[in-house]
């Protein structure tokens, strides 16, 4: 009868501690003073229903998912033209429709359009490095962009970030909120990067590495990389029968 009686408990599978990076990972220096020392407190919530599905197509601009054009729509940016595409699913393999995905990245020389970036590499007047989109009814998303360059960063040694694109994903509930980074297949810097290596589970780290998909490439225009994203599953929705 009462709505809350049925939905009193957190209905999502827990955050998988084997998959996610440790909060305190001293090789990544910034984590030393910014990681909570106490255990996270488990809480029995009904907040699973405070959901993030409050955006619609009208909130987004037509070029929001095209980083090659959304900063300066008249001139092409420098660099390798790519499409990044994939599916947003939950742990039950259920597609997540109408979810906001935001991305940000360096330009092809590894420079961010950000006052805090002191790397010598040049800005590209035709590249902002910001994009967003909503997943479609089947959980699909895509971005058109420029392959970001690797860049050096201060971490006490000779540290270089592998080429990566930052992702922010809403899902349907704020319990599914995720921020992560997508890497590129074959990049030798991944194995040397403390941020990537903060994920100790090898398979989990591999799941952040996008796969070159030559079949989706467009002749004389762009090359495609596939990156699927999996968010926490809803326990209240039963598994689908396997085919």
């Amino acid at each position, binding site marked *: 009868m*009462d*709505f*809350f009686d049925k939905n*009193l408990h*957190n209905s999502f599978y827990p*955050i998988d501690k084997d998959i*996610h*990076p440790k*909060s305190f*990972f001293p090789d990544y220096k*910034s*984590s030393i*003073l*910014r*990681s*909570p020392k106490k255990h*996270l*407190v488990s809480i029995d*919530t*009904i*907040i699973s*229903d*405070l*959901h993030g599905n*409050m955006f619609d197509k009208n*909130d987004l*601009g037509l*070029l*929001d998912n095209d980083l090659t054009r959304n900063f300066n729509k008249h001139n092409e940016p420098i660099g390798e033209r790519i499409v990044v595409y994939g599916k947003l699913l939950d*742990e039950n*393999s259920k597609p997540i429709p109408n979810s*906001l995905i*935001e991305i*940000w*990245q360096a330009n092809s020389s590894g420079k*961010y359009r*950000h*006052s*805090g*970036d002191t790397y010598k590499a040049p800005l590209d007047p035709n590249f902002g*490095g*910001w994009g967003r989109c909503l997943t479609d009814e089947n959980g699909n998303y895509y971005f058109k962009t420029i392959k970001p360059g690797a860049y050096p960063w201060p971490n006490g040694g000779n540290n270089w970030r592998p080429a990566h694109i930052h992702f*922010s994903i809403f899902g*349907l509930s*704020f*319990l599914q*909120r*995720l*921020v*992560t*980074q997508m890497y590129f297949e074959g990049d030798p810097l991944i194995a040397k990067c403390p*941020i990537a290596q*903060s994920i100790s589970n090898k398979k989990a*780290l591999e*799941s*952040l590495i996008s796969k070159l998909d030559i079949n989706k490439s467009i002749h004389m225009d762009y090359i495609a990389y596939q990156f699927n994203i*999996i968010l926490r*599953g809803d326990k209240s929705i039963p*598994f*689908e029968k396997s085919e």
Partner: protein
Amino acid sequence: MSTKKKLKQTPSQTAGPYLHIGFLPEEVGINSSLSRELNNLILSEKTEGTRIEISGKIYDGNNEVLKDAIVEIWQVDSNGNYQSRLTKKNKYDKNFSNWGRTSCDFNTGLWKFNTIKPGIVQLNKSEILAPHIWLWIVARGINLGLYTCMYFSDENTLNKLDRNLKKLNNNNNLQSLFAVYTEKYKYEFNIHLQGAKETIFFDV
């Protein structure tokens, strides 16, 4: 009944130092004139409820203020209704977004939201949630986004009845969840990532 094998969650990674580009592009001069910023949609003139300001700073293990973090909030409306995908008879205030986002000031580290005082959530006949606002924090050095929950220090009677706070009675840092009433309609909620005053963060 056979079941599909569960997929594995995509692991988190830090948002890094350049997160404003993705979250609040206008703050770093990336003007998306073709579309609107999503962070300013929390309130309109028609929103029901008492206007409040909540603000605070985030401190690291050396008691240094973070100037590069992003904070997001989720809350119910002024009547305690959730914006819900599960119920059809939704009484939720259509002029209120349950979500807000802001950044820490580049110079002072102060973050601030203008929102409305959330209502009491009536869970069932005997249980409530006192007014509260969920916060989620990401920044360089934070490998997995941190969830905490802000309650109001001037709602003592309701806080004593709160279903979740009751269970936290033995937690030494319980005080960290209460925003301080500083002046009329203004609340201060400081967050400590480490140390004696470490904020309670939740495994939600």
